[in-house]
């Protein structure tokens, strides 16, 4: 008898969109831009992210929950982007997270979440236009509980992402980028061997988590170590069910969100800083979250530049 977990909003999706799916958006060279580290150089970044909501969409109903109050996720994420060759970068990241609520009785959760790795490959680069193919994968690195939502720090999915990204940059520094991705998500296992999804009772600990997709458009300016960008992003699952009335979210939910983001980076030399703000405008089965993050970047050369010898 444990009745009453009816509180559990959910903002995991927003988080997922930010972290596990589109991965680490907090940095210089990211899996969702057309910026490349030069061969032999790398950029190490560490960011802190604060994401919170006090309303969430239970299915499509935007509601508050007095037994959660404000739900907050803190994330610290180191990330490394490496220029392998001119048109190929590797990016890796691993976030540490902690969740908490301002009201109610739900226990915090914390820990390292999922390690992600990306390969970014520019297969066309002409007159300011670049076309990029990006693939990524993520793996849970700790055995966190996936279905204690919205307190869980992740969903324990292994993911594989394929993304196409097109970008045009004018001489003035103004650029326009569009991208779309499909994210495959593995089955997960729960501690319990029974759960309900879409009105059906499953007698197993395995859960089929729906795949997901996202699309984004970005308009920005990049010149002389300064970057500023505004963007719109939409993410959703390929199928899935909805949060039941006054119940908690579940990994099978079709978490959808449309968000508006702003990003800025200033990196005059090796050392730089960046900042981001993201607002979820609309969604279902996710928290209406506001996310802020800030990071420091350090660019360095890990191999000699032979072209200068």
């Amino acid at each position, binding site marked *: *008898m*444990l*009745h*009453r*977990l*009816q509180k559990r909003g959910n903002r995991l999706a927003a988080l997922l969109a930010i972290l596990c799916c589109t991965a680490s958006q907090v940095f210089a060279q990211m899996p969702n831009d057309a910026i490349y580290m030069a061969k032999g150089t790398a950029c190490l970044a560490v960011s802190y992210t604060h994401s919170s909501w006090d309303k969430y969409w239970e299915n499509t109903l935007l509601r508050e929950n*007095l*037994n959660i109050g404000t739900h907050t996720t803190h994330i610290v994420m180191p990330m490394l982007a490496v220029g392998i*060759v*001119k*048109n*190929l970068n590797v990016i890796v990241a691993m976030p540490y997270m902690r969740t908490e609520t301002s*009201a*109610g*009785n*739900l*226990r*915090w959760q914390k820990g390292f979440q999922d390690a992600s790795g990306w*390969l970014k*490959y520019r297969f066309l680069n002409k007159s300011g236009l670049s076309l990029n193919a990006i*693939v990524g*994968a993520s793996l849970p690195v700790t*055995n966190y*509980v996936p*279905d*204690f939502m919205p*307190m869980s720090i992740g969903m324990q999915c*292994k*993911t*594989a992402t*394929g993304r196409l990204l097109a970008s045009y940059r004018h001489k003035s520094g103004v650029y326009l980028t569009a991208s779309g991705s499909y994210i*495959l*998500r*593995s*089955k997960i296992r*729960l*501690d*319990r*061997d*029974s*759960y*309900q999804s879409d*009105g*059906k*009772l*499953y*007698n*197993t600990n*395995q*859960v*089929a988590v729906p795949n997901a997709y996202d699309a984004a458009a970005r308009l920005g300016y990049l010149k002389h170590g300064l970057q500023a960008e505004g963007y719109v992003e939409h993410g959703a699952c390929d199928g899935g069910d909805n949060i*039941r*009335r*006054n*119940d*908690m979210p*579940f990994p099978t939910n079709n978490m959808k969100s449309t968000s508006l983001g702003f990003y800025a980076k200033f990196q005059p030399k090796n050392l730089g800083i960046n900042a981001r703000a993201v607002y979820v405008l609309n969604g279902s089965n996710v928290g209406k979250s506001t996310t802020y993050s800030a990071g420091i970047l350090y660019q360095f050369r890990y191999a000699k530049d032979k072209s200068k010898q």
Partner: protein
Amino acid sequence: MKNNNFKIAWKALFFPAILSVLTTSCNKTVDEPDAGISSPSSLDEKAGTWKPYILASSDDINVPAPEAASSEYYKTELKKLKEQVDAIAPVQREKVNYWAAGAVYRWNEIGRELAARYNTPPASNADGKYPLPDAANPLADPKFPFANPPYTARALAYLSVAQYDALVSAWNYKFKYNRKAPSKNDEAIKSILPVTDLPSYPSEDAVVAEASVTVLKAMFPGEVPYLEEKLAEHKNSRMWAGMNVESDIKAGADLGKAVAAKVMARAKTDGMSAANNQAKTAEMIATAKSIGTTVPWVSQEFPPRPPMLPTYGFVLPWNFSAETVPTLRPGPPPALGSAEFKKNMDELLDIAANQTREQARVANFWSDGVGSYTPPGHWHRKGANLCKENNFSEVRTARTLALLGTTMQDAGICCWDAKYYYYYPRPNQVSKRIKTSVGLPNFPSYTSGHSTFSGAAAELLAYIFPNEKQALDAMAAEASVSRIYGLIHYRFDCEAGLEGGHKIGSFAVERAKKDGAQ
């Protein structure tokens, strides 16, 4: 040139690697245990003499004699059955196999599924009040019922009792009239399922289906169309399989319906309609204070939610009288603030700060919370699976689940009696440092419901399946301690609950010793 080489290598190695990752993570099939086809190891020929719960005897309800095997009527039925079997479609064959797992087995599973589907507490409205579910309008918000553990314990008890009484009655008529299975009367009928010497009139499947649907419609009135569909499918599946002719089905359906009506007459007067008497709580709190609960329980929800079914402790039990309930009440919990209390609280404060992953696993495995089939559902599943693994007949399966279901409702009644007698605060009411990893129940702490349900269930099941005793006791102990790990119960709640549960279960064991089924 160098660049080109690289590009080739990249395409040759990288994309196949990614593709293989993609394809392996594409498999979304969830492996659920296959229930298989039931193969009873005994006909239980004497089950017509077993003691029913509600019926005065197994011939309380009359089932008319069937048409003789030699009659034209029956021969026409056989002919029609043969045509049906010969024309079976693949989708029908799937249904045949689904129901062949066992009638009681499947309807118990359906009962659990409905419990899970209706197990969400009402949301508070704009005035900070919690509207009550309305049985006359079951699909409105909030849905009726809120299938919480006491509600589900009762629903599954009535379901199993109706199935059992109906089957005891059916067994009586089966061996009285002794109509052989269709394929034994007409060799041209090639039944799709294994055929035994169990007489086929009245059909045990129809008996169980109709009895189950009568109970479940009353318990889950918003599910009538779903239940009707399942009922028709179940009855038809027996004809598609060549197992029963129409008159077997009809006699079974009539009997099942009549028995379930008698069983549900008890439900109307068992006190459940008065189990949510919130007016009684002021008096209960006063009593609790007078016996030493200095800080009585208050709801930890916002807005405060009225406690769950405060007068469920007055509902009529199955295996003992209502007067016995207070005599099964455990002694008082430690005084708040006492050394004993502090020791128990310190344990929780330590888990609150340092819960291990294994503790979280145990808490989650047994959480059985909102959106689940509750602890009674968890134990019904275990009981049903044990019956299946031991190749129990339909009637012996029904008996086991009726014993289990009734003892679990008894456990709920006794536990609720203790909870509202002592009105003891939850750990998180005492210290805000304690927050739950499974969800906080909205009723007093002492004793633990999980522990009481599990103690009773393990006691009963260990009697039916003595080889499993050790495993069952370990399960119950784990279910009990899971509530400490989940940070919603003191250890003394769990220990008193588990011990009390075993005691409650022993009443069902006493019944089992004397019901004629040994």
